């Protein structure tokens, strides 16, 4: 069965320092992986996704993630945190192989705090 594990429930960084949010996945086939962000009182917004093309995926707001099959990881990074990045981040895997109808399996989420 497919699953994702977000290793940190809470990450705190200072503004201007790098962000690393960790995610490991388990999948029996080549997965589709996503990072979603949720700001307070807002919906889940897609940051980026991996769907078996380039392993380094660039998303919105300067975020990127690298798919590492050997490590079964899909960590989210950003070189320099901004106050507006404070939110909850979800690593998500699709429960089916590419092309078939898929539903999403979520990690527990990582709450990112950004200190001035």
């Amino acid at each position, binding site marked *: 069965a497919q699953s994702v594990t977000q290793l940190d429930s809470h990450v705190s960084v200072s503004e201007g320092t790098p962000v690393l949010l960790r995610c490991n996945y388990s999948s029996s086939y080549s997965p589709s992986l996503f990072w979603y962000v949720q700001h307070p009182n*807002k919906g889940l917004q897609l940051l980026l*996704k991996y*769907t078996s093309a380039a392993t380094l995926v660039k998303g919105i707001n300067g975020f990127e993630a690298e798919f590492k099959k050997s490590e079964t990881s899909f960590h989210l990074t950003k070189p320099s945190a901004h106050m507006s990045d404070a939110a909850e981040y979800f690593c998500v895997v699709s429960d089916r192989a590419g092309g078939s*109808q*898929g539903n*999403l399996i979520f990690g527990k989420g990582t709450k990112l705090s950004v200190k001035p």
Partner: protein
Amino acid sequence: EPEVTQTPSHQVTQMGQEVILRCVPISNHLYFYWYRQILGQKVEFLVSFYNNEISEKSEIFDDQFSVERPDGSNFTLKIRSTKLEDSAMYFCASSLWGTSQETQYFGPGTRLLVL
């Protein structure tokens, strides 16, 4: 940019009452979903819907739950007789083709509290 909307944003109900959560998916999308997140737990898939039929449902989606597309724009989740454990944030999502590689677009959620 088109977005998924949900109403109400918050709902408080008494145990045993029926609730209907409403969603307006993105207009040209064909697949619709409901997910829920109990406080402190993961977001969980409930049901997917295509062509006026349930495509898939999870084990959570028992006979107390139903979904409907009553008109060309709304997509609803009904809970017939709410239980305390139904208290959660409910998210609606939609996608164009429903494939596993596709982005699902989420609404802001409805926070349901059952007393």
